[in-house]
């Protein structure tokens, strides 16, 4: 066989930069908008008052507690489905559609370990709409700015890495 002396393909795995993670998250949100939120759109439109006036809407919610209950359940279900979206994709492919776009992967910090379902659940626990888990919506981005990793990443002992192809 003739040796063509083609450049050998090499891979480099780095910690994913914050901007790529943010962009991949926005892509995921865009997909979630169509797949999960849109089916609830008709119900939400029907449940929410039509007035543009904030005080009128506030009064409406105050005097219609059953609507508040229904909306709470709807929001709870939407967030649960969003949680399911991240868990299924990250557990099955180690990446969500947004991460696929930027070639980002979720990996355990300890490379000897595997990405277990528990780890995936912990790193996406912020999507579960239960207090105090929802506090992670504020804490996670703050951690991201200071340490380059989300608190959920640290708790689940995972990290998001990017795979870069290098050629000789």
């Amino acid at each position: 066989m003739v040796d063509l002396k083609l450049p050998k393909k090499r891979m480099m795995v780095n910690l994913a930069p914050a901007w790529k993670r943010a962009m991949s998250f926005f892509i995921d949100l865009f997909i979630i908008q169509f797949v999960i939120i849109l089916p609830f759109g008709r119900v939400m439109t029907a449940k929410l008052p039509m007035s543009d006036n904030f005080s009128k809407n506030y009064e409406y919610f105050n005097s219609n507690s059953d609507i508040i209950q229904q909306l709470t359940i709807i929001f709870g279900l939407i967030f649960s489905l969003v949680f399911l979206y991240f868990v299924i994709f990250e557990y099955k492919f180690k990446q969500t559609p947004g991460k696929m776009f930027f070639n980002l992967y979720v990996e355990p910090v300890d490379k000897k370990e595997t990405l277990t379902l528990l780890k995936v659940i912990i790193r996406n626990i912020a999507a579960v709409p239960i207090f105090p888990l929802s506090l992670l919506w504020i804490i996670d981005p703050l951690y991201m700015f200071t340490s380059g990793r989300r608190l959920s990443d640290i708790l689940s002992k995972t990290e998001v890495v990017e795979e870069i192809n290098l050629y000789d």
Partner: protein
Amino acid sequence: MIEKTLSLKDKLFSSFKILFFLWALASGISLFFGNDNEITGGNVAVIPIHGEITVLEQGGFSAGGASSEAIVDSLEKANNNPGIKAILLDIDSPGGSGVAADEISQKLKSINKTKVAVIRELGTSAAYWIATSTDYIFVNRLSLTGSIGVIGSYLDFSGFLNRYNITYERYVSGELKDMGSPFKEPSIRERETFQALIDKMKVFFVEEVALNRNMTLEKVDELATGEVFLGNEAVKLGLADAIGTKEDAIRYIGKKINSTAYEVDYRERKTFMDVLTGLSALSPPEIGKFIYPINNKIQLT
């Protein structure tokens, strides 16, 4: 290096399968929260009755008016929705078909919720009939209302045809079969029959108004000259209950239902296909109309 077990093609295919599963799950769950019939963005269903009232939906792009078909449907939806505590009819109509008015009126009477009508500029004839089927009528002091009566007319082209030597060949199985044909001069019997029809319709109208407004037949009959009344006159005559706006009506409903009243639009929404299919729809000829001749309406400019 990251361990990869799936090819890109497999990954994409699996991703679509997961997305479809999530979409189906979301769609399925959303169905448990009611359908379009259960609009709950308010507790007062506002049903507009604007323009001429007809039985069937008027088609076309420029079609206006209110059909009993659509209004009865909206009333049914409002009645079936437990979140709706009251119905507000927003009336601005000169009237129209007696059958349509009766259909809407009967439907309103079958609903055991607070029903209020607010007459804006016009609420005459058939529109007034409908308003009387509610518990309370608000009018503007300048609204035109009343016009309790029936109108029926057609153009007689027989003189025109004679002038151009065109004859109307008449073959009928009975003397009155072509009654109302615009191509011949009506006979005395036809005129009498036509007038009798109009009078009978008027009796129904008077009886309904008397029953709905809790007035005597004599009193309503006295007012049933076809005369239109200004809102403030109508209140004095007992044809309406109070001078007020739509906001007053909402406040009144709030007191009645013992809760803050929030309006929700129960207008029948037309799809593009409805408009297209409506283009070919034709309205049947009407014998008696419960309408105030809108072309003669007094306008304050």
